[in-house]
């Protein structure tokens, strides 16, 4: 029986990088799942963002639900050049932030919906974040770019792309 949930590619950074890209993604799965374990090169407010197929036009949007240990909040981004996977998750050079995002029917003919989870706890600050994102394109996704809003992903950052195949 072929695997239903299988890894397609993994990137582990041996040096700092401004971008992680998965390309030539086969259209043979139903959904994609990307897991990220992220450190950045400096401590600052960081937003991890994704784009598809090199599209950096104002074709993305998101609705977020976030708790930072003190306040629960919801916000939205419209007409953006990317999907922010979380908002103001202050990252760390030593404590990783964990993200997982699901891209549904990535090879289908409707707009692409993303469900993302961002999780960070730094023993005094942190965030838990759930986001729904939209890419207003009916094109199949063949490339995913993941970037921090500023600075670089640090050495040791790991990103894995999985494919899930429905019956």
């Amino acid at each position, binding site marked *: *029986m*072929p*695997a*239903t*949930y*299988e890894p397609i590619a993994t990137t582990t950074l041996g040096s700092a990088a401004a971008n992680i890209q998965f390309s030539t993604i086969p259209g043979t799965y*139903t*959904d994609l799942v990307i897991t990220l374990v992220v450190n950045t090169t400096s401590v600052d407010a960081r937003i991890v963002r994704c784009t598809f197929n090199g599209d950096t036009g104002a074709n993305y*949007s*998101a*609705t*977020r*639900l*976030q708790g930072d240990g003190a306040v*629960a*909040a*919801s*916000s*939205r981004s*419209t*007409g953006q050049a990317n999907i922010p996977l979380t908002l103001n998750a202050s990252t760390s050079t030593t404590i990783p932030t964990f993200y997982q995002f*699901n891209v*549904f*029917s990535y090879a*289908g*003919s*409707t*707009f692409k*919906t*993303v*469900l993302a*989870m961002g999780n960070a706890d730094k023993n005094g600050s942190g965030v838990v974040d*759930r*986001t*729904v*994102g*939209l890419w*207003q394109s*009916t094109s199949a996704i063949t490339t995913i770019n993941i970037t921090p809003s500023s600075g670089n992903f640090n050495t040791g950052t790991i990103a894995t792309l999985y494919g*899930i*195949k*429905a*019956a």
Partner: protein
Amino acid sequence: MLGLWWARLLNFLAAVSGNGAGGGGSFESIATATGTGSSGTITFTSIPSTYKHLQVRGIARGGASLAPLYFYLQLNSVSGYACHHLRGNGASVDATADTARTYAELAGGGADSTFMAANIMGGIIIDIHDYASTTKNKTIRCLAGTDRNGSDGIIALSSALATGLGTTAVNELKLIAASGNWTTSTTFALYGIKGA
């Protein structure tokens, strides 16, 4: 020596066919169902009891205008559910709870086909752990959301307890649009997750 050679050949053939060690996986696709445009219910029946957990993944677009967006889940055609939700609509957060519901009401999924632009779909992930247990009640977990590049998007976490099901194993699962019909672009896939 000859016996060892045949044993290795049989193990290799079993691995290639997927019926032995090295074939298949822990996360398996059970069935997929697509909306017809003329029904608000999608049903998975005869769910085998051989897995440890179930997961439903889908994109959905439903009927008439409803805000906040939600849809229903029903197990084994029984009524009686208690639910809790944590929802964000892009401007505010709310937390709600319901008891004695006919269906499990799950927030966030199912784009509104009369209110949202064509091709916008809700994303849904539902988990039911230990669904085949005959000694435990069943808890449903859902992460779902719909964004429409404007107001009235929603991202939501829901949990539900199937009070009417008791400790009966789950063998049927229905996904029901809160209003109207699931569109033909709606697709749900049911997966089984094996234990060790």
